[in-house]
């Protein structure tokens, strides 16, 4: 074990790989954070659509979810990277492709989380809100979602952790995230143990602190 290889390349690994500052399009955080935010927004719509009464809203949402949950993410990235430009006949930037693929893919999972979160709020809450004269939209916005959100936190964080680690799959299209950065360094230095151990620790620190923060958030958001 010789960790000088890590010390020598730490700026590349952290700045380029984790944060996305450098010569290459990349950065684990730079992809994971917008992807979860946008994916969550899309996921809310999908989750709501899955609960809709009208079949022509519900069924497409269901198909969407089932489809994307049945396909490996690598395949989705691949399709977005190659097929869409082929159809549109314009090359797309890697970052845009990677982000779109993640958002579209994650939205299927996040949509399920949103749906479960909403369903976990007692039915009586919606009835109580409607019977005080709130519109369905107001009921959703002021009463159901705030509660659902709290219930969703554990599942959301788990998903975020998954996404955070999955960004490494974007390397298939040359996106330089933490794993890819380690791979690049490894290609040059051939010290896989030290490098992979190091990124395992970095991943672990990031995800573990995320799940700790989530637990704190959950407790803070529990009234009383």
């Amino acid at each position: 074990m010789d960790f000088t290889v890590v010390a020598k390349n730490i700026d590349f690994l952290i700045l380029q790989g984790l944060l996305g500052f450098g010569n290459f399009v990349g950065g684990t955080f730079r992809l994971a954070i917008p992807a979860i935010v946008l994916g969550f927004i899309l996921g809310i719509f999908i989750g709501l659509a899955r609960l809709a009464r009208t079949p022509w809203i519900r069924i497409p949402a269901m198909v969407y979810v089932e489809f994307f949950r049945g396909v490996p993410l690598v395949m989705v990235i691949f399709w977005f990277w190659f097929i869409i430009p082929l159809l549109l006949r314009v090359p797309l930037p890697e970052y845009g492709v990677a982000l779109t693929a993640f958002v579209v893919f994650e939205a299927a999972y996040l949509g399920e989380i949103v749906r479960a979160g909403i369903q976990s709020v007692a039915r009586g809450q919606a009835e109580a809100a409607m019977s005080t004269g709130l519109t369905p939209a107001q009921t959703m916005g002021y009463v159901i979602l705030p509660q659902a959100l709290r219930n969703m936190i554990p599942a959301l964080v788990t998903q975020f952790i998954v996404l955070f680690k999955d960004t490494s799959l974007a390397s298939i299209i040359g996106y330089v995230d933490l794993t890819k950065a380690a791979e690049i360094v490894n290609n040059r230095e051939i010290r896989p143990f030290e490098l992979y151990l190091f990124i395992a620790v970095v991943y672990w620190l990031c995800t573990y602190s995320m799940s700790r923060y989530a637990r704190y958030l959950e407790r803070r958001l529990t009234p009383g």
Partner: protein
Amino acid sequence: TTLEKIARTGVLTIGARTGSPPFAFVDAQNQWVGFSIDLVEQLILPTLSKKVGKPVKLEKKESTPPTRIPLLASNAVDLIAETMTDTRSRRDSVDFSLTFFVTGAQFLVKKGSPIKGIKSIAGRRVAAQQGSTNARIIREQAPKAQLREFPDQPAAFQALAQGQVDTYTNDGIQLAGLKAKAPNPRGWEIVGDFYSYEPYGMALRKGDADFRGVVNNGLMEGIDSGKFFDIYEKWFGPKGELPYPMSPDIKKFMIYQAVPK
């Protein structure tokens, strides 16, 4: 066509690898450099600029064995400049430029290994790179070998170093690169005759003769002017990234490729 597109945008996009020194790799300064990148930058780009009548900028995207053909097909890149062997079946999908490097497959073994070449690998565990022509040839010519395919060099080399496999086969030049980088270069040997012929060419979209002409002209002018050999010297010469002198045969082959004006 590609030329029209380049004329319009002023950009040539190439696909290259980040991890196959010295053809294309990320160096210690985190710059993306290498032999095949230099060829494009110094030989093809000037010809191209002349052809379209304005300066052309170079852009690089990463390509890997599974993505390089789709990258071309989807117009994401215009030219693949990496260690891609020109084969007949690949010519069904893409066109190739002139050959810019020639090598052949060999074996990397621990010093003192009984493996001496493709004849002596029956029953042995052999690592190869996923998607490479070598894996395919081993399968056909030495069906008794136990083949293991790894997606990248370091993983395959690791498997070899740990004894998971008995040998790693790849293009001789790649093995030489690997050996030079290894923590203990003297502990390794590259053995066997070339059991395959691996001419590297640059791939481009099929049926785009004009663009191919420009690429080939660039290479030929480089060969004519000797600049091609200077670049080779820079990367493969005694002071280069990976010393690997060009044999007289290959040098002749290169020169013969450059047809008269």
